[in-house]
């Protein structure tokens, strides 16, 4: 994480738009929401982090982190099938981003396969056309 969240807020105040959007800080937010329940001013900090991610994606400012591509791969499967697909996601993401890490993930994947906890095929919802129409419309309404 290159800037602490507190510093990110100060940078926003100082108008440092490009530096903020290029920071990997929002991508390290795991959405645990501790900040939101603790903030005495009730600022929805986690939601701010999501907004910063949206803005960074729109501005294509995210070269220092793998996280955006992981998110994009995830939603790629959701848009195609209506359901998430771990096997495809993990394979696609790791092969494109960290091919060597495949080896260290070997035991993990094997264990999950042996316990029958990973589907090898994605599941598609019945009314995928309806979902796609909704998502296409939503994207046309997107205001970051």
């Amino acid at each position, binding site marked *: 994480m290159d800037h602490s969240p507190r510093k990110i807020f100060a940078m926003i105040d100082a108008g440092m738009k490009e530096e903020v959007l290029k920071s990997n800080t929002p991508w390290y937010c795991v959405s645990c929401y501790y900040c939101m329940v603790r903030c005495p001013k009730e600022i929805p900090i986690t939601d701010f982090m999501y907004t910063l991610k949206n803005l960074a994606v729109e501005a294509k400012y995210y070269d220092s982190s793998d996280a955006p591509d992981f998110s994009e791969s995830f939603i790629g499967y959701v848009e195609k099938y209506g359901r998430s697909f771990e096997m495809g996601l993990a394979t696609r993401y790791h092969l494109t981003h960290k091919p060597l890490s495949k080896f260290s993930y070997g035991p*993990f994947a094997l264990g999950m396969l042996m316990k029958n906890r990973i589907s090898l095929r994605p599941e598609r919802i019945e009314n995928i056309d309806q*979902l796609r129409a909704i998502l296409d419309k939503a994207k046309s309404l997107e205001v970051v």
Partner: protein
Amino acid sequence: MRYGYYPGCSLGSTAAPYDVSTKAIAKPLGLELEEIHDWNCCGATEYFSIQKTAAYALVARNLALAADQDGLKQLTAPCSACYLNLRKTDHYMGKYPKIGERTNEALAAGGLSYQPGSLEIRHLLDIVVNDVGLESIAEKVTNPLKGLRLAPYYGCLIVRPTLGDEPVDNPEYPTHLDELLDALGATVVDFPLKAHCCGGHMTQISSDTAYELIRRLLQNAADYEADAIVTICPMCQLNLDAYQSQVNGHFGTSFDLPVLYFTQMIGLALGMQPKELGIGKEIVSASKVLKKIGVETEEAEAKPERKKRDDKSLPMPKV
């Protein structure tokens, strides 16, 4: 008691035992769970990172389908991320009119609409503890989990954020899972990190970060001499169970803590067989621990026997 049931994607794959055990305990607890027809993924934490309007619309399709299904008023999700996304979308559509309008405009493209507030969205644990009730559950216990030391693990999204309404439990130090496990006859250990993050998707993106978060949780449970960790979330279960050996390798630790779902613990206390509850699919075996309460388990799949090295073959480095 009738509820709309939103299983979410994990319960069809990595968390299949959660789905199996939920369905197994529903009947004895008097819960009628009606699956939402043709539900779609909630987007987890990924869709909101990329595009918010589409992310709300994705979740709202489920809300619209559920509200249309034979007058359902309550919707439950066993997965914490699904639960939060459903609840947050319902709440924000009402709180921020622009989000409500845009989301409904998107839904209209698929011939759907959703009026925020039509559904009460609740986590399965909340329903078990508050609707079924601890006394009623305690009366049904035939095989108390006596002598079993359990660490109740809540993770994040079941207790946070609080979203304006009256929170179900304390957002930083919740206790309703503790009370449930106590009612099942177990010894509930103190677990100070009970509402800390399991690392979520960080196992994929920045594994060092995730391993440290997982290590802290395992260490904390081990410090309080827990026999097992009991979870209410598929992501938490996956990270703590399936990555445990990697965490051990990374830090040179030797944690051996099974991670089970609260629904599995209820089933065992009600005298059900481990197999009916999907027990045996954990990566860290729970067999040894469950013997303490007289439960014999069989592993879902036999582990392959490692071929013994032939003494006559060339010397190979030990792995």
